[in-house]
């Protein structure tokens, strides 16, 4: 039997105190840094699991289980459990990539889709990569309009405009998209990267006319430049990059404002720059015929006033609102704002004097330097810049062709009902299994720890899977995992109940069986989990595999310790 004294003696061991201290610290970190609660939780679980492989004292094994259960319960309370749209209601649209991509391209795709969703005003859209060839776009609410908005934003092509000194020099539709390509390194002549493209007859003429005599001027490259707009930025946003410490030549406030204004100049559709502090002192802005849209930081207090004045307010993040400058003391004509996401300014290369003589020219190249401390980093940066420019010239096309998968729509009340019933199902499964082991073993000392450990596993699984998203398949997997969890405890119990042989020998035999069957079961699921990218069922695979592994490394060793003491 386990006595109170034994428990106290166990609790006083150094490694046991350490693990509980660690768990308490992790809980505190989760509580204090809520936005990063999930990564903290997952990392601490991983850390404890690793410790479990190396430290093998009896009391430590039980302590690990208790610590993880506490951590998980705290995570459920603090981070919450996230349910998929099957349970919360909403729409899900899978985006299928034509081919598998590396993680950098995937990040790029997800970021692009997020940005597009934000520009459509769909801030609640969740975009997450699934495997290497699929992206899920989910919205918590559903309406046919919303669905078609998302479909539009995914299939949409942006509008590219190249502006020189307030006039449109290059239009995206005048570029032959098939000719946009990277320049092979041997033809780069000094630059780190380059992209070439060919324009149509009318495009060549337009460029020749507009660029004539504008040698060294910046070519402002816009993607979806807003029309009929004004932009209101704070002093801080205006100067964040201009006065940054890493800048060799600081830019004065007057110069910064001048550069910002000239970058937004366009004949007939200027975007006027206002300074937030000046505007809010004496608010008198009113929309006029070709100034109906106001672009402003989401943190600004001006947004409601602008709305009240009749503007269509477009809110951007502080980072998007901050213009980035490039200046050189030798050549002030080429000074420019190079990146300003809030208005769609993506890049501003300098016009080489040879293309500004007024002679129509069909083929152009844009090249530039790359940054990076090592040759590998530099090459990666060059590749990234090349790809960005290519995508920009193609109207913001995604780096890989996409197609939309089958969309799923779940009405919210039905989803909530499904969740309620599924949770009841979990409780019933637990009860049914408890009843079965009670009938089979008929000893409280066996039944109670068995049920306790099944319950503990359920809490851990809910916390871990709920840190990501529990969908229908995931819920089915959690239910299955309860059964799988009890299975290994049955193997241990039956082995311990045998009369012959030493206790430790018998335990070793039970573990040999469990280790083998868990290994085989996990191996069978691995291709489904990691290679298939079949998102619809990955939740199920994850739950069953996680259930088996949790059992093998954490709850079974603890159960064995408890059972061993109970049988003695």
């Amino acid at each position, binding site marked *: 039997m386990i006595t109170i004294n034994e428990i106290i003696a166990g609790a006083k061991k150094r490694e046991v105190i350490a693990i509980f201290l660690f768990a308490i610290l992790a809980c505190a970190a989760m509580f204090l840094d809520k936005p990063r609660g999930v990564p903290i939780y997952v990392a601490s679980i991983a850390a404890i699991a690793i410790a479990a492989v190396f430290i093998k004292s009896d009391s430590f094994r039980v302590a690990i289980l208790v610590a993880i259960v506490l951590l998980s319960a705290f995570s459920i309370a603090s981070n919450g459990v996230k349910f998929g749209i099957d349970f919360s209601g909403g729409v899900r649209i899978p985006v*299928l990539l034509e081919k598998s991509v590396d993680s950098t391209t995937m990040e790029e795709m997800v970021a692009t889709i997020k940005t597009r969703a934000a520009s459509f005003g769909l801030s609640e859209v969740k975009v997450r990569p699934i495997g290497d060839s699929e992206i899920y776009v989910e919205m918590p609410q559903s309406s046919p309009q919303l669905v078609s908005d998302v479909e539009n934003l995914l299939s949409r092509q942006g509008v590219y405009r190249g502006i020189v000194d307030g006039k449109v020099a290059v239009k995206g*539709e*005048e*570029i*032959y*998209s*098939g*000719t946009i390509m990277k320049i092979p390194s041997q033809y780069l002549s000094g630059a780190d990267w380059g992209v070439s493209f060919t324009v*149509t007859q009318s495009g060549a003429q337009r460029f020749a006319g507009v660029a004539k005599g504008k040698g060294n001027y910046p070519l402002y490259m816009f993607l979806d430049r807003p029309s009929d707009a004004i932009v209101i930025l704070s002093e801080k946003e205006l100067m964040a990059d201009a006065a940054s410490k890493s800048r060799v030549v600081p830019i004065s406030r007057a110069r910064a404002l001048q550069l910002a204004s000239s970058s937004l100049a366009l004949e007939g559709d200027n975007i006027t720059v206002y300074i937030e502090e000046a505007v809010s002192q004496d608010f008198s802005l009113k929309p006029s015929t070709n100034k109906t849209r106001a672009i402003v930081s989401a943190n600004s207090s001006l947004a409601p006033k602008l709305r009240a004045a009749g503007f269509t307010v477009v809110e951007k993040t502080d980072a998007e609102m901050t213009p980035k400058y490039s200046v050189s003391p030798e050549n002030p004509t080429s000074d420019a704002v190079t990146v300003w996401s809030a208005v769609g300014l993506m890049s501003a290369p300098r016009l080489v004097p040879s293309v500004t003589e007024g002679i129509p020219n*069909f083929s152009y190249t844009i090249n530039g330097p790359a940054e990076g401390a090592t040759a590998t980093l530099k090459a990666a940066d060059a590749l990234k810049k090349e790809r960005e420019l290519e995508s920009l010239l193609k109207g913001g096309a995604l780096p890989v062709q996409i*197609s939309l998968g*089958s*969309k799923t729509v779940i*009405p919210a009340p*039905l989803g909530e*009902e*499904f969740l309620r*019933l599924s949770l009841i*199902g979990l409780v*019933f*499964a637990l009860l*049914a*299994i408890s009843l*079965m*082991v009670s*009938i089979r073993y008929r000893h409280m000392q066996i039944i109670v720890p068995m049920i306790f450990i099944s319950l503990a596993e359920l809490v851990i699984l809910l916390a871990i899977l709920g840190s990501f998203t529990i969908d229908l*398949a995931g*819920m*089915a997997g959690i*239910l*299955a995992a309860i*059964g*799988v969890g009890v*299975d290994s405890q049955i*193997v241990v119990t*039956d082995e311990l109940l045998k009369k012959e*042989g030493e206790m430790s020998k018998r335990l070793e035999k039970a*573990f*040999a*069986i469990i*280790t*083998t*069957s868990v*290994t*085989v*079961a996990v*191996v*069978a*699921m691995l*291709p*489904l989990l990691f*290679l*298939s*990218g*079949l998102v*619809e069922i990955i939740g*199920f695979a994850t739950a*069953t595999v996680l259930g*088996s592994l949790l059992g*093998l490394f954490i709850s079974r060793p603890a159960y064995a310790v408890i059972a061993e003491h109970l049988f003695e």
Partner: protein
Amino acid sequence: MSLSMPNPYSGNYKLLVAVPLLLVLVSLFFIPQIQLGVDFKGGTLATMQASSPVDADSLKAALTEKGYTVSSVKSLSNPKGYEVEVEIERDDSLTRAETLKSTFFEKIEQVSLLESDVTVSNASAESVAKYAAARQEVDALSDELFAIALLPKNSSSITSSNELKQEVGAAYRQITDGYSSKLSATLSSLVNYESASFNEVSASLSAKFIDKALMVVVYSVILVSVVVFIIFRTFVPSLAVLLGAACDVLIALGAMGLFGIPLTLASFAALIMLVGFSLDTDVLLTMRVIKRREGTPRERAYDAMKTGMTMSMALMLAFACLFILASVTHINTYYEISAVALAGLLGDLIATWLLNGVIVLWYLEHGGQTGDSQKPFLSSIFSS
């Protein structure tokens, strides 16, 4: 659940093999009758939530009359009222449009390149001819697509390839949007529903699902076989374990054909999981019988059976709960997973104890070696 059943291995146990073999034969008969779900076949699955019951037969007749090929209509009741599930086969023109679109987008970049050559070379005869030939090809594709979209457009009137690209993209969107909105309009005129969900699987998507599923099967089989052979390191027991798993999956597949459980991504996942479950008991049996010395092999097999039966029972209870949940909510994912798992676990009882058990015992009683001295391969890595 007192385990007072007789030891099945006490008499001429070899005859027991007849049961699983017979069952596998019956299963083989039913396997061709397995229906493919929308995931693998392509098509549209519309799920509607209604407040009043819907007559499935008349709905099917009405939809067929409107020109849809209806695979199935199911009318069920769920916690929030009534649910109607309509499965419609992929429309031929839609499949064709999809092929046209992807072929077009594969070729258009090259065409754009040739068009730029015409401009750059100042319309040299060679470049013009090359461009014209390439355009002819994509024009044919676009015109067919415009015709399907019922658009009064002609590619010959669109001079630039950039413009053609946009028009084709718009035409394809019009086709798919038109199909979806026509279908939902038809359904809403026939069924008075509160909400509807459409699960559309295009031909290319279902082809991708099939590819991935086959890949998963191949890799899982290879991995599992390798791991089993590494663990047991003797041929007959390894083969017996794998045979038991194969037999189990076949029985589950047979049950799918017999009871009309469609093969979808969910039931596919359940089948893969069954491999793991089935190996669970197979491993228990084989390790207890081959790697131990206490008692006779027959006693050890019987002993393992008692533990194994309890394990299977626990799993079955869990899936029975899921099955009940499925019959209350009519969630297809739950139904497909639980039904396949239950059938497979039943099959596992038969495959493990009547097939695998017999093979292992026969192997031992005909000169096979017990291997107690040998420490199991993986336990040296993990356990104390």
